[in-house]
């Protein structure tokens, strides 16, 4: 009889010796799942000078932290991270392994899953434990979000999933929480690699723009037209105390920063008010706004799919709506 797999593991991605927000989201979720499953949450942190992060991991729900602290781990190396996580999983046999569906997570977690000959579900947006047998229910969008699929890996362990950043709820950190910290000695074999990281540049924004938390969001879509309209939309946003966001075509063109992209490949927002100017409502975008309390759509195309999910729709030209809104908002201000 082989040893039973136990514990929910979270690979905690770090950035400049700080935990990324998706790591906190995953730890929060893992501890909710662990409670339901009656097991422990373990954080796995690989990096250089990261000992201080153990406390943070515990405050977000980890009962145990495995730290692998070595100068060679200061930047992400696919080979090395694969070797470490694979070996630790073989040794300690977790029941579940979760990681952020970030580019780094997606780069090496499939290698770990393949080494362990187990299933892996990508880009989940919801996780749950099935009551009757404790199997992990993994929900993910398919076909650009037009379908929602629930996937299980019932026969193999560990059950593995990557989860989209910005979807799961972060718990309030409990700084009094106690946890066990295990420093794992870095095995030289793990460091054998044909990959050399020559340089690594990270954009300053680590996904913590105000957008995700905003009470009101004005979103710019492809139909915005001129740069002058963009400026007016920003003014409307300021008057409504709203943050500015954008759809993918707008950030792809560089009109607004990538960090402001809303939707499946960007930030998921939960504002009370969302106003889309020239937003058509493609599925990858609307997935990120569906939790808004009130959705307002301004689009001159009456067939734009966004109207289907809007609380209030204005079939009108943004060129006319923006000046009219500014006038009205200022007049009343």
């Amino acid at each position, binding site marked *: 009889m082989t040893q039973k797999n136990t514990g929910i593991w979270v690979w905690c991605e770090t*950035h400049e010796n700080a935990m990324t927000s998706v790591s906190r989201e995953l730890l929060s979720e893992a501890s909710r799942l662990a409670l339901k499953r009656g097991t422990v949450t373990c954080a796995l942190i690989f990096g250089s000078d990261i000992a201080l992060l153990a406390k943070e991991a515990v405050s977000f729900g980890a009962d145990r932290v495995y730290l692998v602290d070595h100068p060679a781990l200061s930047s992400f190396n696919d080979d090395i991270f694969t070797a470490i996580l694979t070996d630790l999983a073989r040794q300690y046999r977790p029941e579940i392994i979760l990681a952020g569906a970030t580019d780094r997570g997606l780069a090496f977690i499939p290698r770990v899953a*393949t080494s362990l000959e187990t299933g892996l579900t*990508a880009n989940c947006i919801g996780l749950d434990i099935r009551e009757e047998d404790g199997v992990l229910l993994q929900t993910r969008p398919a076909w650009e979000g037009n379908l929602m699929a629930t996937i299980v890996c019932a026969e193999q362990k560990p059950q593995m999933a990557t989860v989209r950043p910005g979807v799961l709820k972060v718990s309030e950190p409990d700084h009094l929480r106690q946890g066990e910290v295990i420093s794992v000695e870095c095995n030289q074999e793990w460091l054998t*690699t*044909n990959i050399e990281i020559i340089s690594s540049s990270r954009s300053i924004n680590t996904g913590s723009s105000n957008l995700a938390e905003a009470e*009101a969001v004005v979103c710019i879509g492809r139909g915005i037209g001129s740069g002058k309209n963009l400026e007016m939309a920003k003014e409307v946003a300021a008057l409504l105390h709203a943050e500015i966001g954008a759809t993918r075509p707008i950030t792809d063109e560089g009109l607004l920063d990538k960090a402001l992209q809303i939707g499946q490949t960007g930030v998921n927002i939960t504002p009370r008010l969302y106003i889309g100017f020239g937003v058509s409502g493609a599925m990858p975008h609307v997935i990120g706004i569906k939790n808004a309390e009130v959705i*307002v759509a301004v689009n001159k195309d009456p067939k734009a799919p966004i109207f289907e999910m809007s609380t209030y*729709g204005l079939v009108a030209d943004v060129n006319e709506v923006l000046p009219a809104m500014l006038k*009205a908002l200022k007049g009343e201000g």
Partner: protein
Amino acid sequence: MIEAKRLQIVVCIKQVPDAKSVRFDKETGTLVRESAAAVINPYDLHALEAGFGLREKLGGEITVISMGPPQAMDALREAVSMGADNAVLLSDRAFAGADTLATTRVLAAAINRLPGFDLVLCGKLTVDGDTAQVGPGLACRLNIPSITCVNHIDLEKEAMLLTRTYDDGQDVVKVKLPVLLTVNKSLNTPRLPSFKGKMRAKSLQIPVWGCAELGLEPAETGLAGSPTRVIKTEVVSFEAKKEMLTGTVQEQVNALLERLKAHGMA
């Protein structure tokens, strides 16, 4: 040494439904595949182009492989018409319903059956599965490193110098061959099939390898060899109690602001 030899390049492609023609059945919660025309996964066109570019610089041979039903042969012929030297279709009834783990088993068996390889190229993801898991998983089975999201390739004497662009930054990475790369669309602009290529694609004998040729048990492949199961799918729809505002633009705007005020939002 990269310079000294002709590269053996394998490009993995997948035939996917054309996103423009996909329909969804709300009753069954599934995709209606028959409605969709099939194309080469858009990212894979960039993997092919990366192969062509390297072959032009270094000499070498490109073998394109695809796992799929018999009609995936069309995708392989298209790749040949663009310039691939050889093609192999990996097709067997047993392969149906494969998840990414079972898929990499078949692809790895096929690549290991080729005379040799220096470089494996894949698209960053497929637009139907959208997992980005097959590339790195395949590298694991081939026991070679993988670098994902590559959007620039430079050649050095004994290694490749790659730029990979991540959601929050960019790395420059040096890697020795053999290696598997998954490529971003920004890496290059795929070429169109040539007339000569189309003629060649028509006449080229493309072998079909199944379990028997690959030395795999049917139980290791397809649905039987897949640890994951889809237990439910639903067509997503967001319903809203929508109100279309009417009148002139100014009237619509005023009506909107009135309502927002009622919500305490303006």
